[in-house]
């Protein structure tokens, strides 16, 4: 704690409640600079990536759209969309949430904020160089790793600062229990640089030969979901769901079991993306088994979230954070069970190479992870800015636009994908006509993209209004008042 802090300057006879509030407020405030920088840039990349995604979706139904511009051809904007939402939006929203959560749970004020601010600047520089590189035609055509070789070292240096910081804050935590969210965050922050470096060394700097490239590619692409985004999303929900409704997690034992089984099984699952590929059978089989074992962590999380919420579902009406977080939690259960089923070879032969997979990816990265991040941002930012969200109506619009948008997108791609998969297996249907089965559903996907982009515009405006402290100062939700000023907040339970 800094000697000049507010906490150390107040009267020794201050109420313990006020002390607890001030201590928490001070830790929150210490994270303000870097977390807002990560969130702000995440929101920028979310908009940028949504526009590219929408354009890519429309090109599937209107192939001639803007085709005279080389840098806007499908082969470039599709990877540019993927990488800007993964590394620009999702990773930065996750890092921001992780920093805030780790500091709060470790009960330590953030140290070395300059390290994190420079990491954020470098990270954004890396994403910018990478995305422009892809649009300029330098994509590496390795899925999830399309950034050209001159962009990834910048990202890696930026990440090194974040990783160092994560270890420092964990090292200086207050003694006591390590909450399950801290385990998830620590795992994510320590494993990511290792996965990213391995994949980049083996695929870019010293490329290995032949089909082994595919193995490295999918080992990485699966792990960035399973061991980077998933733990951060779950860490956020394991804190926010009990904290928002004011009720401890239903079975803490299950949450611990869930974390450790995820840590043990998740990293073996990547090869199920390569079922039918030129790989030793044992490699694929091991992955299929590990994928099915993922049933344990997924079900522990599902039971816990549901049972903690049980009897408190009316809270979804009054808490914006909970609305997004619970949507994300439900999507996590669905997308994980769907993923397990897709790892079973007989299902995989139907869904592989169809839009079904695209639907699954969006349910995971958007329905689960992005919704979790929206929920976390709605909880965290008021505590950093010291201001309530300016408009409840805009939050509701944001929620409904993106909730309906993502359900429409996943639904249409899933149905279209199955029809396409069945047609691909039918010897009487030509490959060309098998695509026709997906076309009407691709139209629907194009519409869902408009809803999502509209939702993101609402969210981005709300975020900017929040930073400008627009609207009247509100007394209502009492989050920012000290307990002495507003003791009546228990009534909503």
């Amino acid at each position, binding site marked *: 704690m800094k000697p000049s802090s507010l906490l150390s300057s107040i009267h020794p006879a201050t109420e313990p409640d006020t002390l607890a509030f001030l201590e928490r407020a001070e830790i929150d405030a210490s994270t303000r600079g870097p977390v807002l920088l990560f969130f702000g840039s995440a929101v920028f990349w979310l908009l940028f990536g949504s526009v590219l995604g929408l354009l890519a979706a429309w090109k599937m139904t209107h192939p001639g759209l803007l085709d005279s511009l080389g840098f806007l051809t499908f082969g470039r904007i599709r990877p540019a969309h993927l990488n800007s939402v993964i590394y620009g939006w999702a990773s930065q929203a996750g890092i921001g949430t992780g920093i805030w959560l780790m500091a709060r749970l470790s009960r330590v004020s953030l140290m070395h904020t300059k390290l994190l601010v420079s990491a954020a600047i470098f990270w954004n520089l890396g994403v910018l160089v990478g995305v422009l590189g892809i649009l300029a035609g330098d994509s590496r055509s390795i899925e999830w790793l399309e950034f050209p070789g001159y962009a990834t070292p910048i990202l890696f240096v930026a990440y090194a600062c974040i990783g160092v910081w994560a270890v420092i804050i964990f090292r200086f935590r207050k003694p006591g*229990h390590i909450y399950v969210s801290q385990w998830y965050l620590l*795992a994510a922050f320590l494993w990511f640089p*290792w996965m990213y470096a391995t994949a980049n060394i083996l695929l870019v700097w010293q490329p290995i030969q032949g089909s082994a490239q595919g*193995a490295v590619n999918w080992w990485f692409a699966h792990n960035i979901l399973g061991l980077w985004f998933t733990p951060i999303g779950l860490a956020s929900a394991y804190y926010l769901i009990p904290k928002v409704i004011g009720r*401890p997690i239903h079975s803490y034992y299950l949450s611990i079991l869930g974390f450790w089984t995820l840590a043990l099984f998740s990293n073996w699952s990547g090869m199920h993306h390569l079922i039918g590929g030129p790989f030793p059978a044992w490699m694929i089989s091991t992955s299929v088994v590990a994928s099915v074992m993922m049933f344990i962590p997924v079900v522990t999380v599902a039971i816990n979230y549901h049972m903690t919420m049980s009897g408190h579902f009316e809270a979804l009406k009054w808490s914006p954070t909970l609305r997004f977080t619970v949507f994300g939690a439900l999507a996590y259960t669905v997308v994980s069970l769907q993923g397990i089923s897709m790892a079973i070879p007989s299902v995989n032969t139907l869904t592989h190479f169809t839009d079904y997979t695209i639907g699954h990816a969006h349910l995971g990265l958007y329905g689960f992870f992005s919704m979790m991040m929206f929920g976390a941002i709605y*909880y965290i930012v008021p505590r950093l800015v010291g201001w309530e969200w300016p408009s409840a109506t805009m939050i509701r619009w944001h929620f409904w636009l993106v909730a309906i948008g993502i359900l429409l997108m996943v639904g249409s791609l899933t149905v279209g994908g199955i029809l396409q998969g069945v047609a691909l297996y039918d010897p009487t249907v030509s490959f060309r006509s098998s695509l026709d089965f997906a076309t009407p559903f691709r139209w629907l996907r194009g519409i869902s993209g408009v809803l999502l982009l509209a939702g993101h515009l609402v969210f981005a405006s709300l975020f900017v209004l929040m930073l400008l402290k627009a609207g*009247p100062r509100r007394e209502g*939700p009492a989050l920012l008042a000290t307990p002495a000023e507003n003791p009546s907040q228990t009534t909503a339970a």
Partner: protein
Amino acid sequence: MTAGLILILGGLVFLSGSALAAFCWATKRGQFRNLREAALTIFDRDEPPGTPTDRFPPRK
């Protein structure tokens, strides 16, 4: 190919191994002894269980 495979397999073992090592460390430190109380560590004196901590801002 062989070098790559060794690296991948080594990676798999390393990731799972680090998880196992952390698990042993945590067990030794007694992190899993009193789970009922552990679940309550996210609450504070001024935000005890039973206190909701998030709401929509009021309409004007």
